[in-house]
């Protein structure tokens, strides 16, 4: 069991997890301080409203504390909590019968295509708003929460093929939206000559 420590800020996540597993709640508080925003952002990107995202993120951290001994340090701590949070959010949607509505939701404001606003650099959050809810959810689960297509399909209770096509369509739209400005591309290629 780790010794008594008063300053947790200098410790690595895995060490903090060991302290948390020994019942040290301040160590877990430090983990929440470090990674709380990342988990909350992921939930917002999945489509949760900020208040709901915060609720689910808090539940996810509480669940992570309860199950901290299951974390073996094989992946990152934040990745582990993100998966817990994503699944909790999906369960909440399912309970409120909002999950089925996801698949029927319409796409957002822009179409995929090479000419779609490529010169205007926008951030990921803005780009995600242009995806249909199901595409946004699938892309966020696979690229934000680190779930495989199979895991996402199971979590969403959707056929694997459906998840794959949501991801594909979502990526096509994001690629068009997040493409580097044409001027940057040409400058880059000039630099390589």
């Amino acid at each position, binding site marked *: 069991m780790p010794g008594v420590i008063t300053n947790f800020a200098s410790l690595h996540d895995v060490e903090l997890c060991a302290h948390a597993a020994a019942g040290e*709640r*301040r160590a*877990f*508080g*430090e983990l*929440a*301080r470090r990674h*709380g*925003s*990342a988990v*909350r*952002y*992921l939930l917002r*990107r999945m489509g949760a409203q900020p208040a709901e995202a*915060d609720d689910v*993120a*808090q539940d996810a*951290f*509480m669940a992570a*504390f309860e199950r901290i001994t299951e974390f073996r340090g094989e992946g990152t701590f934040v990745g582990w909590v993100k998966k817990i949070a994503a699944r909790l959010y999906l369960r909440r949607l399912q309970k409120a019968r909002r999950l089925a509505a996801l698949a029927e939701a319409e796409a957002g404001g822009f179409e995929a295509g090479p000419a779609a606003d490529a010169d205007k650099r926008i*951030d*990921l959050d803005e780009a995600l708003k242009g995806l249909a809810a199901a595409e946004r959810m699938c*892309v*966020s689960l696979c*690229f*934000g929460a680190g779930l495989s297509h199979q895991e996402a399909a199971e979590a969403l209770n959707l056929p694997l093929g459906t998840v794959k096509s949501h991801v594909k369509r979502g*990526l096509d739209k*994001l*690629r068009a939206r*997040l*493409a*580097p400005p044409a001027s940057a591309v040409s400058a880059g290629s000039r630099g390589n000559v």
Partner: protein
Amino acid sequence: MSEIDFDRRLERLFAETPELPDGAQFAAGIERALSRGWTARRWLIGAAGVVGGVIGAGQLFASGLFARVESAGQSARVLSEGLAQVTSGADMVSALSGGLGPWIAGGLAILTLAFALSRVIEEI
């Protein structure tokens, strides 16, 4: 940009999240919630321990153990009368061997069982 490059870029973008302005507040809320949960758990464990202790002591009473202690107390009283001439400490032995003895033993049994049960539940 190749598909793999774009996938990696997207993963990076998802991983790069700015700190939310109320990040410290959020973490403090989690620490508070954990402390609340811990306090509630300690009370529950303590209550479960006391209930278990009372039940255990009740079983001891029902099994007639204290009647046997009482009869042993009679023997102790005879012994203490002999010892009374040697030391005044024998008064205590005499008091314990009287009517108070079983109650003190019962109380101690409740405390011991409550403590033991609390420890066991906490370990579980």
